[in-house]
C-alpha cells in the first residue's frame, strides 16, 4: 500500500527470535520431562527458530577471508573504472573531501558492501563512505528520530514502505534532477510496479534495488504422492482448489494449503486473490470508498475462505512464518510466501532441498500478487546530496544490482533485480532455478493506486471479519460486505 505497508511475517520473526533463549531452556526441560513418553511425531514443532536471510551472521573466522578478497575487488574495479565508472559526469565531483554517511540494515561486513565502498572510493577520491549499520527491526524508528532531530544520514538502504513513509513527511530528497543527468538510471527500464513504490505523487524518491513477490511454494514430493505433476503447478482457481483437495488428508496430518486468521495475516494474504478476481481494496478515484465488497471481492472472499477446509487448524491462528516448519516437513503442501522463505528453507531446513519449488500464484480474471523490495534513498537533510547521489547511483549499477540480488552461498538471497533488462540475465537462475517462478510472477506485481493514510485501520476491520470467515462463523461474502460498511464509516469520518 502507498504510505504504510505491513509485513506480518517480520513481526513474527522478531518475536520468535526473542524466544530463542526460552526455547533453549525448554529443550532441556522438555527432553527431561517428555523423553520417556513422547511419540516420535512430536519432534515436528521442536525445530529451533531460525534466522532471516538478511541477518545471517558473519562468522568471525571469515573476517580474514574478506580482508583478502577486498583488494582483489578493488583491482578489478580499477580496471573497470578505466572504462567508465562515472555515470553522471554532469554532476560535479566535490572539490573538497566529503564524507557520505550511509545507513543500512544489511550486514555491511559482507563482501558485497565492503567491495562497493572500496571500489567507489577508488573512483571518487574526494568522497569517503561511512557505514552505519542499523538493526532491521529498529531502522525505521532510528531514522525517524534522526530526521526529526535534523541529523539524518546522507543516504540509506531502506524497505519500500519506508520510502513512502519518509517521502510523505518531506524527509527524502527528490531524485528527478539527478536522474535526468545520469547515463545509468533509465526509469523506463524498471518494472513499473516496483518503480511505483519508489514514487510519491509522481515524484521519484528512491532507486529500487531488489524485488520480491508473494509466490506459491509447493512440495514436489507431495504432488507426486497425490498423483499430480510437480512440473505443472495449479494455474487457475479451479485447479488450485482441486489440487488442495487432493493434497489434503487430515487423518494423516497432511494438508493442501494454509490460511491464517490473525487480523493482519488474514487481510494481507487475501489481497492477491481479491485482485486476481478483478477487485480492489479502495476506489482509486475516491480513497474513502471501500470496494472490497464488490461482486469480485465477494467471489474472492468466498473462494479464499473456503480454502480453510484444506488448511491445518493448528495454523489458523498462526502466520506464514509459523507455517514454514510444517511446509519444510511436508505437512503443508502449498504455501503463499515471499522470498524470505527461500532463505529459511535453504539455511534452516537443508533436508528439504530438492523437495520444493516456486511458481506464480494461480490466476483468475488477471494475475496479481503483493510485492516488496528495498530502495536507495537520499535524505532531504543531507549536506552532501550530490556526492550521496553518486554513491547510490554507483551501487545500483546493473552488475552490482545482479551481484546483490544473487547473493553468495554464505549470504543466500532470493531476490530479483527490478530492472526489466536484467531479468533475462541467466546468472540470476543458474544457481537458483526456483527464481524462475518468482520471475514469472513479476509481471503480476500489483500496487493499489488509492492513497489512504488510514488504510491500516480499515485493513484491521477487513482482517477481523475474514478471520471469522476462516473459522466458519460467517461466510466470506458476509465478511467483506459487513467489513466494508464499517471500514467506510471509519474512512469517511472527519
Amino acid at each position, binding site marked *: 500500500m502507498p504510505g504504510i505497508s505491513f509485513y506480518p511475517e517480520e513481526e513474527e520473526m522478531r518475536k520468535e527470535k526473542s524466544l530463542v533463549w526460552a526455547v533453549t531452556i525448554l529443550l532441556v526441560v522438555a527432553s527431561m520431562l517428555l523423553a520417556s513418553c513422547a511419540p516420535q511425531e512430536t519432534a515436528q514443532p521442536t525445530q529451533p527458530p531460525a534466522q532471516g536471510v538478511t541477518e545471517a551472521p558473519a562468522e568471525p573466522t571469515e573476517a580474514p577471508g574478506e580482508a583478502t578478497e577486498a583488494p582483489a575487488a578493488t583491482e578489478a574495479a580499477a580496471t573497470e573504472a578505466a572504462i567508465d565508472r562515472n555515470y553522471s559526469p554532469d554532476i560535479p565531483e566535490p572539490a573538497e573531501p566529503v564524507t557520505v554517511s550511509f545507513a543500512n540494515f544489511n550486514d555491511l561486513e559482507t563482501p558485497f558492501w565492503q567491495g562497493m565502498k572500496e571500489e567507489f572510493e577508488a573512483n571518487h577520491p574526494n568522497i569517503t563512505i561511512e557505514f552505519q549499520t542499523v538493526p532491521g527491526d529498529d531502522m525505521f524508528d532510528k531514522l525517524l528520530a534522526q530526521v526529526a532531530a535534523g541529523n539524518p544520514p546522507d543516504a540509506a538502504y531502506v524497505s519500500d514502505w519506508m520510502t513512502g513513509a519518509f517521502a510523505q513527511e518531506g524527509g527524502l530528497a527528490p531524485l528527478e534532477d539527478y536522474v535526468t543527468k545520469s547515463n545509468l538510471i533509465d526509469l523506463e527500464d524498471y518494472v513499473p510496479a516496483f518503480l511505483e513504490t519508489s514514487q510519491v505523487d509522481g515524484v521519484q524518491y528512491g532507486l529500487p534495488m531488489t524485488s520480491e513477490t508473494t509466490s506459491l511454494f509447493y512440495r514436489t514430493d507431495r504432488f507426486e504422492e497425490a498423483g499430480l505433476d510437480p512440473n505443472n503447478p495449479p494455474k487457475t482457481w479451479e485447479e488450485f482448489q482441486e489440487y488442495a483437495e487432493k493434497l489434503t488428508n487430515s487423518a494423516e*496430518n497432511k494438508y493442501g494449503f494454509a490460511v491464517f486468521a490473525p487480523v493482519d495475516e488474514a487481510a494481507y494474504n487475501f489481497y492477491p486473490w481479491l485482485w486476481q478476481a478483478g477487485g480492489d481494496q479502495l476506489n482509486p478515484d475516491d480513497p474513502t470508498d471501500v470496494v472490497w465488497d464488490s461482486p469480485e471481492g465477494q467471489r474472492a472472499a468466498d473462494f479464499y475462505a473456503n480454502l480453510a477446509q484444506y488448511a491445518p487448524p493448528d495454523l489458523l491462528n498462526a502466520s506464514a512464518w509459523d507455517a514454514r516448519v510444517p511446509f519444510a516437513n511436508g505437512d503443508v503442501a502449498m504455501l503463499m510466501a515471499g522470498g524470505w522463505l527461500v532463505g529459511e528453507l535453504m539455511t534452516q531446513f537443508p533436508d528439504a532441498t530438492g523437495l520444493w519449488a516456486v511458481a506464480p500464484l494461480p490466476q483468475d480474471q488477471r494475475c496479481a500478487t503483493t510485492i516488496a523490495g528495498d530502495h536507495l534513498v537520499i535524505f532531504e537533510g543531507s549536506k552532501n546530496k550530490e556526492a550521496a547521489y553518486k554513491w547510490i547511483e554507483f551501487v545500483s549499477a546493473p552488475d552490482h544490482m545482479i551481484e546483490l540480488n544473487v547473493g553468495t552461498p554464505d549470504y543466500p538471497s532470493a531476490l530479483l533485480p527490478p530492472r526489466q533488462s536484467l531479468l533475462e540475465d541467466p546468472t540470476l537462475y543458474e544457481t537458483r532455478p526456483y527464481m524462475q517462478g518468482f520471475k514469472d510472477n513479476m509481471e503480476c506485481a500489483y500496487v493499489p493506486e488509492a492513497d489512504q493514510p488510514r488504510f491500516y485501520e480499515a485493513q484491521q476491520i477487513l482482517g477481523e471479519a475474514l478471520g471469522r470467515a476462516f473459522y466458519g462463523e460467517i461466510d466470506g461474502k458476509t465478511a467483506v460486505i459487513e467489513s466494508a460498511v464499517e471500514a467506510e464509516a471509519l474512512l469517511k469520518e472527519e
Partner: protein
Amino acid sequence: MAITDIEKSQPFSRRMRETLRLMRKNWSAYLFLMPGLIHFAIFTLFAVGFAFYISFHEWNIIRPEKPFVGLENYLRLFEDPRFLRAVTNTLTFMVGVPLNLISGLAVALLLNTKVRGQALFRAMFYLPVVTPLVVSSIIWKWLYQGDYGLLNYYLLKFGIIQEKIFWLADPNLALPALILMGIWGGTGATMVIYLAGLQSIPQEMYDASMVDGANSWQRLRYITIPLLRPTTFFLFITSVIGTFQIFTEVYIMTNGGPLNRTTTIGYYLYTNAFRELDMGYATAMAFVLFAMIFGFTLIQWKYTRGDVEY
C-alpha cells in the same frame, strides 16, 4: 505507633523538624536504604507518575508531537469493543481462581497426611511454580497441538475422544484450555500456602472434636476450612490480582486469538503500546486496570475479611 499519634497533633513545621532531627540521628540507616530508595523512586514512583501523565496525551512513541487530549483516552476505552471483549475475557479467566483454590487445598490436604515420598510429591506439585512461565507456555502449546500434541495422542489412543480436538485453534476451547493450564501452574503455589495454613491449626481442636465424635468430613467442614479462612482470603485476593494481569500465556500460546477469544486486558494493553505504539491509550488502559484491581480488592476486603474467632 504512639509517637506518630502525638506527632499528628503537632503543627507541620514542628513535625518536620522532628523528622529531620531523627534523620540526622539515624543518617547511617538512610544511607543503607538509599540504593533501594533511589531505585524505587526512579523506576517505580517516577515511572508510574509519568505513565499517569502520558495517559492524558496522544502519545505515539515515534511521532514528535504529543498533544494533550484530556480524558479522551479514558473515554475511548468504553467505546472500544475490543477492550470490552478483553475485559469479558479477563473476567472469564476468573473461573480459574476458585478451581485453583480447590485443587490447591485438595493437594495440600493429601500431602499433609503421612504419605510415603511426601517431600517428592510436594516438589513435583511445586515444580510448575518454579518453571518460567514462558517455558511452560511453550510446552503446553505443544501439548495442546491438534495434529501432533501429546494430549490428543493419548486421548485418541485410549479412545476417550474419536476425533482430533484443536484445543488452542478452536475459538470456543482456547480460553478453557488456558484456564486448565493456569490451574496446573497455580496449584503448587496454592498448595504450599495452604500447607503452611494447615500446620498452624492447633491439634487440640481436632482432638477435642474427635472426643465429641466428629468424623473426618465434619472435621474438615467445621474445623479445617473455617480456620483456613485467612489463608483462603489471602490466596483469593492474590489469585484475582494475578488473573487480572494474565499476559505471558496469551502472548506465547495464542496471541489473543483465535478471533480475540483469549485477548486479556494485559495483552490488549501490550498490543496497543508496542504494536500500535499508542502509549497514551495503553497507559490509560493500565490505570483503568489498576482501578479495577483496586476496586475488586476493596470489595473482597470488606466482605470476605478473614477474621477467625477461636
